[in-house]
């Protein structure tokens, strides 16, 4: 058996080094990409959780409100509850740091803590204050105007201990004295720590807390505590991992998408293994037949071939794990933990190499190789030796591939899968459906090839064009006679081209829709903003006046964005308070569908983003309750709008309703319309000289915002492009390898052709034409499959994972370019592969077999 192993596998692998290398490479690329993406995601999440533990320390539980926080009186109640052993109040404020040359003013998270209480729960936040150890004078410095900064924050803002740091918090600018460092805080994390009393006073948070860290008395359960505390609306009691879980939740769809893309490469690799393995089995069928005739059992042969696949898979996987680790390391260094997706605001993640994940991906790699080899192995084992010894029966072997029902069944299964809902927020059934569509299309490909080629062959024959182009006729006839061989060669191409079309179409649709949306939501001439909705800074009241009364300004619409926590394990929803005419909301919002008309006897109207419908079940005509100013307020949902800026849900309401219900008169954004003939750049320059918030305000023309947004979009899809390119590269290598081995297998046929007077050049032309025909066929099938998959991505996967809809925009240019490249590549490869095959003498070639 060992001898057989040696003869059949090792020597074969060595003789066909290129083919073996390509098979191994296909698995390697797939495994490495999958493993790399998974490593990076794992590292980023671990980093975030570590950073979180550092801040939350050893708290058993956390009471959390949204960014706007809750009344501090809750603290007195919680701290004296017998179930609570220790309560540490926190006011987290995201301030903007003034005076940096950045495009966006950088954000600094400042934790206002009671150092006397936090010491027990979060020792990292105690920091290092020079002089503390031997000088009693600095002992109480933390209670005053001091801020302690993380090492990364010191470096980022270019300040040292003793310097002043100027920040915008609330409506004003505050200079904070850097009193020390937080050496225990992880590298990369921008964090400041202040005394809670001082933070409340100077950062605009009087009377408010955002969090209370708790250590519970022995034997107290979260549920019991939750029941007795009776927390106000919008305030939640959660376990210590809630924030980590929330982050994992909010980035999960993105991470799963990346993982699936990486697995696509493996999937394509599996098809490639199939192509080459089928070829290899065909090429060795005479040997197999001899072995069988010599007494090798059917099962033994099958096991032998599967063992061969396992070897390929194992070598490929092991190489892939190493390559994946290297890729992950490089990508982390270049793109950061979220690969440009913008989900994590964490420091430098440290890669861990978990054995289980490695084993999982190695297993997937081997599985892909075995799955790719199984059909050929089974066929080889089941072919009667006599039939196999008979030359020219290759197509017989491939006949089962021409069966129509497996492909149809797969497509049907895809249809069923598409009707299923997502599994805990991840569109798993839809992803499976994509796999089924692709496999189904590949399975149907021989049938389609014959369907397309037969009319062509018939037509050539009928119109006598065949006599003028006999090579084309030969090629077409081969497609009709041997569709299976072409299908094998093209499986990898159909898969990679189909997916490329799908992804390209999805990205183009998304980008186009986003672009159109940006035009729609940016009707004014100039936009001013202080902070994003996630920071705790707003336009100083004096600046509102200055902007409104600027002589070049015709009209200003101010708005306020406030994050509101609707569920402890989800990202905050953003409430946008702005000028909206209830009678004509479409003038202010990019509505999806038609809105209802609001009546004054209804609760105040809101218009929700698509994510609100998916995540919180908001319904047009229904009610929505939002915790505003510590109370649950009822609103009537009047319509749905498209909001690409806030993936986790947003609610637009009229500024007057917001102000009446909350008493909050602050504003974060301004849309400015200018008088005729006034230049936005001039107004912007003048405002930047007079505004109080000039160091942190962002003043931008709509074109600039559009360009910025699209740049961010492209950056976040950069990894997608790389993964796609990898998939198509594997496909191309596959075409070259498959054609080359097919051509070798047909050297007998070519010898015969040479024998009857066909020239070498003509054979090459036939091969090129065959390659072109097969590629056209693969392109047609891939294009169809790809467009269907694109629809699945746009209509099912995107709404399910990111909760937004988009219009279908097919990137014709991109697809046309791909087709041309593919045709050229496949035709060329086929001809080059053929050159080797016909280099043997015709006589030897014909004689080879008998």
């Amino acid at each position, binding site marked *: 058996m060992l001898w057989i192993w040696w003869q059949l596998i090792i020597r074969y692998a060595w003789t066909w080094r290129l083919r073996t290398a390509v098979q191994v490479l296909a698995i390697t690329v797939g495994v490495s990409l999958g493993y790399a993406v998974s490593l990076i995601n794992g590292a980023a999440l671990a980093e975030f959780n570590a950073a979180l533990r550092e801040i939350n320390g050893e708290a058993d539980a956390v009471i959390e409100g949204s960014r706007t926080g809750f009344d501090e009186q809750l603290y*007195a109640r919680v701290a004296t509850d017998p179930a609570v052993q220790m309560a540490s*109040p926190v006011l987290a404020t995201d301030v903007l740091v003034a005076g940096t040359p950045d495009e966006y003013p950088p954000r600094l998270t400042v934790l206002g803590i009671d150092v006397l209480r936090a010491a027990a729960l979060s020792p990292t936040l105690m920091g290092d204050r020079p002089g503390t150890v031997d000088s009693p*004078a600095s*002992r*109480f410095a933390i209670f005053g105007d001091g801020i302690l900064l993380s090492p990364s924050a010191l470096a980022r803002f270019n300040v040292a201990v003793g310097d002043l740091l100027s920040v915008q918090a609330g409506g004003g600018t505050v200079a904070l004295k850097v009193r020390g460092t937080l050496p225990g805080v992880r590298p990369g994390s921008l964090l400041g720590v202040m005394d809670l*009393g001082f933070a409340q006073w100077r950062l605009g948070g*009087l009377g408010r807390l955002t969090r209370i860290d708790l250590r519970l008395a022995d034997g107290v359960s979260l549920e019991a505590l939750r029941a007795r505390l009776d927390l106000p609306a919008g305030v939640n009691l959660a376990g210590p991992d809630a924030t980590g879980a929330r982050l994992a939740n909010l980035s999960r769809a993105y991470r799963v998408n990346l993982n699936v893309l990486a697995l696509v490469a493996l999937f394509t690799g599996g098809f490639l293994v199939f192509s080459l393995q089928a070829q290899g089995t065909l090429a060795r069928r005479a040997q197999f037949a001899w072995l069988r005739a010599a007494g090798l059992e059917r099962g033994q042969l099958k096991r032998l071939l599967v063992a061969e696949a396992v070897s390929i898979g194992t070598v490929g996987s092991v190489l892939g794990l190493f390559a994946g680790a290297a890729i992950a390391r490089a990508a982390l260094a270049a793109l950061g933990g979220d690969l440009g997706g913008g989900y994590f605001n964490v420091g430098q993640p440290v890669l861990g190499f978990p054995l289980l994940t490695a084993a999982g991906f190695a297993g997937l790699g081997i599985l892909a190789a075995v799955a790719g080899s199984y059909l050929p192995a089974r066929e080889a084992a089941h072919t009667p030796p006599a039939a196999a010894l008979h030359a020219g029966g290759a197509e017989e072997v491939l006949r089962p591939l021409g069966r129509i029902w497996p492909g149809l069944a797969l497509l049907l299964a895809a249809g069923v899968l598409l009707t299923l809902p997502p599994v805990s927020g991840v569109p798993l059934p839809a992803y499976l459906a994509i796999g089924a569509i692709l496999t189904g299309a590949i399975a149907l490909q021989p049938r389609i090839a014959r369907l397309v080629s037969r009319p062509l062959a018939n037509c050539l024959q009928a119109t006598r064009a065949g006599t003028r182009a006999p090579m084309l006729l030969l090629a077409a006839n081969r497609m009709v006679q041997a569709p299976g061989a072409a299908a094998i060669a093209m499986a990898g191409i159909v898969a990679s081209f189909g997916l490329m079309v799908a992804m390209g179409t999805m990205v183009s649709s998304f980008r186009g829709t986003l672009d159109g949306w940006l035009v729609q939501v940016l009707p004014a001439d100039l936009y001013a903003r202080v902070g994003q909705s996630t920071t705790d800074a707003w336009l100083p009241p004096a600046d509102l006046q200055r902007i409104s009364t600027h002589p070049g300004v015709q009209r200003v619409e101010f708005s306020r964005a406030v994050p509101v926590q609707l569920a402890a394990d989800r990202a905050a929803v953003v409430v946008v308070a702005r000028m909206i005419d209830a009678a004509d909301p479409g003038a202010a919002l990019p509505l999806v569908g038609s809105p209802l008309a609001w009546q004054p006897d209804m609760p105040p109207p809101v218009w929700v983003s698509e994510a609100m419908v998916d995540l919180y079940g908001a319904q047009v005509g229904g009610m929505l309750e939002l915790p505003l100013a510590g109370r649950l307020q009822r609103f009537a949902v009047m319509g749905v709008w498209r909001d690409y800026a806030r993936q986790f849900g947003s609610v637009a309401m009229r500024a007057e309703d917001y102000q009446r219900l909350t008493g909050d008169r602050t504003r974060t954004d301004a849309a400015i319309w200018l008088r005729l003939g006034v230049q936005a750049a001039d107004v912007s320059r003048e405002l930047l000289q007079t505004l109080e918030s000039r160091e942190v305000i962002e003043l931008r023309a709509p074109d600039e915002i559009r360009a910025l947004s699209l740049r961010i979009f492209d950056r976040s899809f950069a990894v997608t492009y790389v993964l796609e390119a990898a998939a198509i590269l594997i496909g191309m290598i596959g075409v070259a390898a498959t054609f080359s081995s097919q051509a070798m297998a047909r050297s007998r046929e070519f010898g015969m052709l040479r024998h009857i007077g066909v020239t070498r050049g003509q054979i090459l032309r036939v091969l090129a034409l065959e390659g072109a025909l097969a590629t056209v066929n693969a392109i047609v099938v891939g294009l169809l499959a790809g467009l269907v998959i694109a629809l699945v991505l746009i209509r099912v996967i995107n709404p399910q994972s990111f909760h937004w809809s988009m219009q279908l925009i097919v990137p014709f240019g991109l697809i046309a370019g791909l087709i041309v490249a593919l045709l050229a590549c496949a035709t060329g490869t086929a001809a080059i592969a053929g050159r080797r095959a016909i280099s043997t003498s015709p006589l030897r070639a014909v004689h080879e077999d008998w």
Partner: protein
Amino acid sequence: MLTRRRLLLTLAALAAPAGRAAVSYPQVLPRALVFPQDFGAHPDFRTEWWYLTGWLGGPAQPLGFQVTFFRSRTDVDPANPSAFAAHQLVIAHAAIADPARGALLVDERIARAGFGLAETAVGDTDARLSGWSLRRDPATDIYHARIAARDFSLGFTASASAAPWLQGEAGLSHKGPEPLQASYYYSRPQLKVQAQLERNGQLQKLAGIAWLDHEWSSAALAADAAGWDWIGMNLDDGSALAAFQIRSGQAGRPPVQTYAALRAANGAVQLIPPAQLGFTPLRHWNSSRHRAAWPVAQRITIGTRVFETRPLMDDQELDSSLTTGAVYWEGASELLEGGRPVGRGYLEMTGYPEDTRFIL
């Protein structure tokens, strides 16, 4: 743990940093103390404490205990309206000295005043901090304390039988050569204690005798002061002895300040002139935790009377890492006269370790 003397030393160094609205602390000037008003807190002053030390149990198995509440006014900008602004800090220490254990059983708490969680009330003694409390009942003049510490739980009542004993000059106690280096200081000696002590799940009902000091000040100590030796002793005949010396930092120099007073059982007070007062170390105990040689037994000469202190146990050293970082020796001690026990109380010593640190 923070001793009253260490706290004074510490807070003395707390000059208001430049560039901030300076907090102005009232000076300690001669005035008549008014009760019950002066039983309560004086939040304008920089620092203040209620300091209860005593002995529990019979002669067979005596225990020492200490319960202290400190109030400290910081230099946080008085204009800060935040309820969390740390204008006032409340610190509490508790310790049990049990010779069977050989070392102190201690716990400490610190918090900013506010939200009803940590307060020292104005008007009468009423201090609370994270579930610990010390309160005087104005109707009975009985102090009630409740201390739920990490390793023990102590609740007691301490009843006074006499009016407050005003130390120094009618309650104004000098702490240095400068007139303003002074504090307001009164004591409640000979307090009768009924206590419930729970340790290791075992509840003990114990009777005993205690001493309460209440002192407040804004003053700085003399610059060359190195530390304190202080005693407060309840004598078996019903009299009481209070004495302290503020040692000079320079070896061989006489103390910066000394004080001693005896109160007879009938309330008559005898102030001892500094010239007739002397502290002499008799025996040192070397701490292994901190490089310090504590004179745990001392001879105290008051005029013609010669007393000696004898510690309940040697290791009564305290390290208050969570609250202040100060290291001191606060020990239950017997008072001997002519080799014969005549009273029980506490000896307190500061400034002996070489590596005095401040954590907070």
